[in-house]
């Protein structure tokens, strides 16, 4: 027994006790209390500026290193590597025929053996670079952000840079990661506990008020758990009750980012496990729309529940991601028209992440959710901009599809993203045959317009 309480052990205990107390006080003062009241000390922005300077320096060193070895750097070109002709099928084939035809073009030309060139070139060009497949993997960076996961020019790193990288690794994994994990648990724990408590209150204004405050507070703690530095633009257009908020989807974090600035009703499928616990407790405090797995397929049921919710003006605006899947934040893909058929006012929101600090895209075929969250929490920061766009409604003579495309174009324009017509479902599924049939129809018109069937 005497061996247990020697003075050295006492000292260690005291030191540990003090450091834990200091740690938790700092946490409380600098992070949790501001989160509750929605104020910020500006520490994160300072951090961001410092990091940017560091990254510029790192890139310069790599470029210098490459020049010394007389090598060419691998430079990613995120926009396009080959020149794509924007001409239509008809124009191109006519041009090919014109250059090679021996006979008078006024006698309606039928088939030329050179027609095949058009399809051959289009096909090989799409093998070299296509618009769709690159949207489902992380965007490549032009400068290095000291994360190994995003570097292609590995062997040009000097000693100084390696030391810096090592230091960065140490800071990220031994300081930032535990801090963030602690905050995440605090945030989620508080959310579950407090919403359950509020759920005991009778329905009324007090309950709504408290539930909004609690949701906001917990999401703000989660935002700090990711060291997310968010800039909100045009807050006067924030979604109001009875409306539907649509945004482009990059990762599950989108929800936290939007919900820490406003109160929304979430829509989704009920999960099991921890997620399910959170969902069930959230719905006690205010009405969210959760579907059972079986109900998700039933489009009418989904539409009915959404429109019921929207008609009740006391309920919060619904948050929906019409792409249906995570895209890598360089483009916006096809919006599913379900939420645009309901007839409510749509509040579009554009979210653009700055990939230099940490890539927020969730590549669900590569990483599971836990793995993804750990990667998020061990990046430098998540920096993004959110634009609230002016509300839109369906116009006369516009169907749901056209309305969806109009909203999508507005979001793409604001966020500086490429507006694509392709379906995000192509991540996993095959493209529909109707697109090929369209091409075939266009071409058969060229052979002899009178033979092809009318539109």
């Amino acid at each position, binding site marked *: 027994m005497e061996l247990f309480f020697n003075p050295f052990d006492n000292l260690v205990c005291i030191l540990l006790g003090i450091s834990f107390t200091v740690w938790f006080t700092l946490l409380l003062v600098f992070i949790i209390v501001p989160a509750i009241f929605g104020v910020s000390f500006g520490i994160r922005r300072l951090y961001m500026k410092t990091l940017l300077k560091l990254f510029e320096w790192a890139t310069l060193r790599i470029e210098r290193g490459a020049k010394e070895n007389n090598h*060419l750097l*691998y*430079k*990613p*070109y995120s926009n*396009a*590597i*080959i*020149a794509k002709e924007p001409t239509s099928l008809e124009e191109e084939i006519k*041009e*090919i025929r014109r*250059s*090679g*035809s*021996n006979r008078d073009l006024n006698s309606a030309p039928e*088939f030329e*053996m*050179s*027609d*095949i*060139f*058009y*399809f*051959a*070139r289009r*096909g*090989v*060009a*799409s*093998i*070299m*670079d*296509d*618009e*769709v*497949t*690159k949207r489902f*993997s*992380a965007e490549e*960076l032009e400068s290095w952000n000291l994360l190994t996961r995003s*570097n*292609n020019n*590995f*062997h040009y790193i000097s000693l100084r840079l390696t030391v810096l990288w090592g230091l960065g690794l140490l800071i990220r994994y031994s300081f930032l990661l535990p801090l963030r994990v602690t905050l995440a648990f605090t945030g989620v724990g508080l959310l579950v506990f407090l919403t359950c408590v509020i759920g005991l209150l009778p329905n009324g204004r007090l309950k709504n008020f408290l539930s909004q405050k609690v949701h906001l507070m917990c999401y703000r703690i989660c935002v700090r758990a990711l060291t997310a530095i968010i800039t909100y633009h045009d807050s006067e257009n924030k979604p109001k009750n009875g409306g539907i908020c649509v945004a482009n989807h990059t990762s599950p974090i989108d929800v936290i980012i939007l919900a820490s600035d406003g109160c929304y009703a979430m829509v989704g499928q009920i999960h099991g496990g921890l997620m399910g616990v959170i969902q069930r407790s959230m719905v006690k405090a205010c009405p969210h729309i959760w579907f059972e797995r079986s109900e998700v397929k039933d489009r009418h049921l989904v539409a009915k529940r959404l429109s019921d919710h929207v008609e009740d003006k006391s309920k919060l605006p619904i948050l929906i991601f019409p792409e249906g899947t995570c895209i890598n934040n360089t483009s916006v893909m096809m919006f599913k028209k379900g939420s645009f058929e309901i007839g409510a006012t749509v509040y579009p929101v554009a979210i653009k992440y700055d990939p230099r600090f940490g890539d927020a895209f969730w590549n669900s075929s*590569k990483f599971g959710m836990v793995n993804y969250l750990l990667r998020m929490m061990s990046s430098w920061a998540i920096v993004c901009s959110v634009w609230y766009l002016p509300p839109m409604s369906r116009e006369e003579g516009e169907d749901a599809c056209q309305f969806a495309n109009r909203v999508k174009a507005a979001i793409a324009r604001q966020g500086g993203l490429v507006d694509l017509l*392709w379906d995000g479902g*192509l991540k996993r599924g*095959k*493209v529909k045959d109707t*697109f*090929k049939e*369209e*091409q*075939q129809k266009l*071409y*058969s018109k060229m052979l*002899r317009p009178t*033979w*092809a*069937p009318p539109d």
Partner: protein
Amino acid sequence: MGSRASTLLRDEEIEEIKKETGFSHSQITRLYSRFTSLDKGENGTLSREDFQRIPELAINPLGDRIINAFFPEGEDQVNFRGFMRTLAHFRPIEDNEKSKNAAVSEPLNSRTNKLMFAFRLYDLDRDDKISRDELLQVLRMMVGVNISDDQLGSIADRTIQEADTNGDNSISFNEFIKVLEKVDVEQKMSIRFLH
């Protein structure tokens, strides 16, 4: 995770490919990055399914034939060298190459080789002749269900009639070249790189 493209492709390999295809160093590393992103199985080769996963290629009426052009006779996998060799056919012809002497073996992107690529899209059985059936097959792929068999047949007959000079009712490679002698093959069968 970023692909470690340039670290896996050795400098000697890049030099060999450069010599064989004429692509520049940066074009080769860029295309290697593309190759690895298409290679879902991560085994250094591409299969037909890997190509079919590209939506723009899947909706191309001649998609399957183009994919076939990458695979040598009877094989199901294509490695990076083979991939580059086929893509090289579409490299634009630069001015300084036009005056190369005949002693140097013909570059992959010469006019003749570009025409050979197109010829092979028609000539499925690789017997160096485009028969009436082969022509009909390609026509059918390009028009879908929109034109009847009879009309298609008469188009095929007319095409063979015009091109066939030795009366064997099929189009040989030389006859193919003759028919297309005025077409600007160099431009129409080339893909320009932006960098």
